């Protein structure tokens, strides 16, 4: 299952600040009667790169979707960038424009070109003039190495290209935090590395990132903390070195042996 990542990163070279980006306190969530997230406590500092892993149904996607309120938590507190997430629509809109998100299935808008996808939100939410928004978009499309596709439609691109566009589209809003919800799970194996490379570059630039992923190679190289979730709870969290080499809980050991076993 290890994915080869050629780029070596000196983990200590990436600075983590003391400033808190996300603070989650005693957060609980239910789907009807089903208790999905139980007493989640978590602090993310600015510049941290966190990988969340765990078996399917463990609540890891739900957790990061609570951070930009695609899911609503019922108990506890989530503070993003100093703003608490409540039903107040103003706060939600503010946080959503500060927090970028990439989805497993990219969710590009198929009726818009790549460039239009990338400029939609800056123009309509940030009120950036069209020309300026397009310049910014081209800058980020160059960063993810597909400026030549700007006038194509999403369906004309490969999965890996689409996911890189999705990353660029989020970056166009100049977010301070990026959430990744299994960004490589829907990709053909040969396209995974191009997306991971983009994410690594993003990490090198100091972006605060929370990634739900099964790419353990990525976790080892980029993350400064790995969180393991099971049955809606955080079971173990540690720096990647200790997490992979000396997992403490039995549940983690079992999970790691299953995904790394072959």
């Amino acid at each position, binding site marked *: 299952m290890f994915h080869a990542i050629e780029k070596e990163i000196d983990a200590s070279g990436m600075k983590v600040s003391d400033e808190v980006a996300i603070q989650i306190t005693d957060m609980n969530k239910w789907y009807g009667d089903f208790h999905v997230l139980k007493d989640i406590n978590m602090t993310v500092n600015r510049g941290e790169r966190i990988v969340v892993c765990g078996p399917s149904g463990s609540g890891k996607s739900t957790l990061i979707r609570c951070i*930009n309120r*695609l899911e609503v938590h019922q108990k506890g507190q989530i503070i993003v960038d100093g703003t608490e997430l409540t039903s107040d*629509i103003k706060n939600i*809109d503010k946080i*959503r*424009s500060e*927090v*970028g*998100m990439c*989805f497993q*299935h990219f*969710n*590009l*808008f*198929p*009726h818009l070109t790549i460039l239009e996808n990338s400029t*939609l*939100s800056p123009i*309509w*939410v940030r009120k950036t003039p069209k020309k300026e928004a397009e310049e910014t978009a081209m800058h980020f499309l160059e960063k993810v190495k597909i400026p030549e596709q700007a006038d194509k*439609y*999403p*369906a*004309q691109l490969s999965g890996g290209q689409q996911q890189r566009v999705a990353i660029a*589209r*989020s970056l166009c*809003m100049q977010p301070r935090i990026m959430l990744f919800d299994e960004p490589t799970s829907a990709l053909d194996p040969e396209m995974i590395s191009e997306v991971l490379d983009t994410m690594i570059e993003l990490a090198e630039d100091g972006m605060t990132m929370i990634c739900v992923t099964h790419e353990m190679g990525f976790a080892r190289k980029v993350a400064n903390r790995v969180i393991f979730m099971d049955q809606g709870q955080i079971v173990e969290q540690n720096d990647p070195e200790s997490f992979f080499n000396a997992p403490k809980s039995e549940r983690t050991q079992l999970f790691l042996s299953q995904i790394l076993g072959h």
Partner: protein
Amino acid sequence: MSDQSYVRTEMLPEQPAPFGETGILRWVKAKFFSNVLNSITTLVMVYILYWMIAEFLHWAWQPSWGMSSRRECFDAASVTGACWGVIPERFNQLMFGFYPRFEQWRPLAAGILLFIAIAPVLFSNLPRKMLTFSLIYPFLAVWLIWGGSIWFPLMVMAGFGIGYTSLRFLTPVFGSLASIVIAVLAAIVWWLFLASPVANAIQNVIPLGLLSVKSSLLGGLMLSIIIGVAGIACSFPLGIILALGRRSDMFIVKILSVGYIEFIRGVPLITLLFVASTLLNYFLPPGTNFDLLLRVIILVTMFQAAYLAEVIRGGLAALPVGQYEAANALGLDYWKSMRLVIMPQALKISIPGIVGSFIGLFKDTTLVSIISLLDPVGFINAIRGTAEWQGILWELYVFLILMFWIFTFSMSRYSMYLERKLQTGH
């Protein structure tokens, strides 16, 4: 080394397809003569088609265009089929009803201007400035067709101007919601209490207008087009709002939308037309003279909007939930995400259904003949009762079919054009 080992050293070049597997020959073979049954069906169908067309032409190809009564057709030895004389003689009525002859340039002009007004709506590559005319057109068309003082439609337009201006200047002061309410109220007050006196006052000073024509004189294909176009134009936005309402998280909004849609869909259009022609008067204050045609247009719109809402809801339901999530995650609020992300896609999916229900609406306009409006069908019944054309039937209906077919077929072709144009998947 085992026998299974194999390495290709050079790639094969492309070769041309075998004879008869490409082009027209292959198409004819595949579509018409692929097997015995298919071949027999083809031959039988060709014969049936030939027979039908030949019979029709035998009936239709007659030198009867100049005949002035059905009797003349019977007496003429050269006429053995259709008696077309009725069409040129009654053409004017079939088109304009009892609209005064010397004023008929007005509906004609309104009809021609209609094409200019809808062109920029239908074809996005036309200059956007043309949309200004599309906005003015409804007032212009109403004035042209019904006539009267020009100041009245201008004052109604001024109401929109007042609303827009107050919205523009109040938003920075009171915030968006309050200023929308104030703007709407201002416009309504203007329309209800001020527009009419002001229009009359100006008319007294500068009399400018056209001969006023009553709704009861409107008829023929013109009437169908008026009801059809007004119904389509008004029901489309209403249908979108109802579809969004039905999917809303707000319980009251949702219940109201569902109730409206299910009620309207449960009632036949004819019933609603009877309501328009008779019952509605009981609900209105005595002495109100509420134009029958206007009542019909309102009820046709209400009827159509309910069906349209369901068609559009189908499009909304077909969108993956990820589209909503991505729009939200990018910080777009509800209305922006609907307008920029969801609706363009949902409407595109619903194009066949939407155009289908518009075509249905256009044809349903002939139902107004039963509440004694003189649409083409109403006229055909009237013409059949006259002494000259007693009992004539097929000629008029064939003509009517052709007229309606031109409109419905254009709509259908436009929908195909639009689908092709909006095609972005590859």
